[in-house]
């Protein structure tokens, strides 16, 4: 099953921040990691991830740094900042509330 695009679109920043909270990484690896976690629910392309990374960087939620990857090549690594962790916590809390409400309404529908 593929998820609705709007549903995924509403949580893109959150997914990027939560992936970076686990480990700092660069764009290519980030796309691979998220698509692996998605397990076919959705598949992100470059055009989705890089603009989000640049936007988060401008907002100070992540910071970028050029460094040598384990492949020996220079890559632009993105690190989550303290502000990013705070935004992630707030975002997750909102999603939990939203999820709770949807589940409650779903249970009501099922009687």
């Amino acid at each position, binding site marked *: 099953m593929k998820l609705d695009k709007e549903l995924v679109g509403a949580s893109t920043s959150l997914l990027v921040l939560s992936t970076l909270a686990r480990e700092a990484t660069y*764009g*290519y690896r980030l796309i691979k990691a998220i698509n692996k976690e998605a397990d076919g629910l959705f598949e992100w392309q*470059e*055009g989705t991830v*890089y603009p989000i990374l*640049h*936007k988060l960087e401008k907002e100070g939620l992540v910071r970028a*740094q050029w460094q040598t990857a384990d*492949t020996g090549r*220079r890559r632009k690594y993105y690190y989550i900042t303290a502000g990013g962790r705070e935004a992630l916590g707030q975002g997750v809390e909102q999603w939990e509330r939203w999820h709770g409400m949807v589940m409650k309404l779903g249970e009501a529908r099922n009687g």
Partner: protein
Amino acid sequence: MDKKLSSETEAALRKLAREIGNSRGLDDDAQEELYGHLEDKTLGYLSGEDGITEADAVLLTREHFGDPGAFPEADAQVQAPFRSSVSLPRRLAAVAVLTLAVGAAASIARLIAALSMDTESAINYLGPRGWSLIWIVMALQAACILFMLNRWKARERRSQQLWYANRAPSFLAMVLFGMTIIVWCIPEVRLEHSIFAAQHEALIFSMVRMPNPILRTFVVIAPVVSVLFPVLWIWWGDCESVRVRSIVAAAVAWVGTSITVSIPSMLYGSPVFVVGDSTSRIEILPAMDAGAVHQAFGLTPEDVAGTALAMIVLRTVYAVALAVTGAVVYSLISLASRTVRHYGRIRWRPVAR
């Protein structure tokens, strides 16, 4: 993934990154990031089970990125004007500290120049060393400020730490106060009708009193450099979503700083290094003699009623006039820049006949 690509493949990927980057208006940093991504993508294809060649992998990568919509939002990001995440008051405090620090350094440079120069040369504009020193100091002042502001912007783009971003307001106020005192304490070099007066008297006296035709260029250079300072402030302030308010705030802040710095010398006088006909000395001039206003307008100290108020008023009018001119110049430059960018983005194609 750690396979080494051939130089031909790397060149092909560089070319592809440049093509995509140029078509989307990506800056160097984004193009470099894109190149890294293309490299990884190609290596990803190569590490697949099919065992394709590097040339095929490049073709696949090119095809993958051939879609013009591959980076639609990235395009918008790059074209968007720079927006600072640091509040406007902090940014203006930072540029005030920078301007004062550069001004202090310039004063010291002028002082050293005056001390190293023989009086006769200074008075009579002899030799190229004197006027070139003043020119260099004036140009360097503006260039240093522009360089530092650009550097701070670049640091912010890279989300690096900025000294003015998280400091307490009281700390910034203390630094500003300290810099004002330092600027006040550094003796100003003064000798009427000499190269050291050229910067101040350029508009009024240069044509008459400067025998050297090269020195007469000060008539143009001095006002241009004077306007450049408020332009730089306004450009630095204009990094917020509310453009007009930021521009006005930056212009007002520049006027405020300019007047604040000159008030102590108008009220209490200031040390002046006097280059005289017979001797050079440092004097602490009283308030009424500290300014050049009465001389510029051919007035005696008594004519200006023995009060610093007239000089402060004149100084304010002068600063406001410069700020307004700066805002107009900045708006024109901004308009021209937007027009050039707009026409630069249009893909010109021959008209089909």
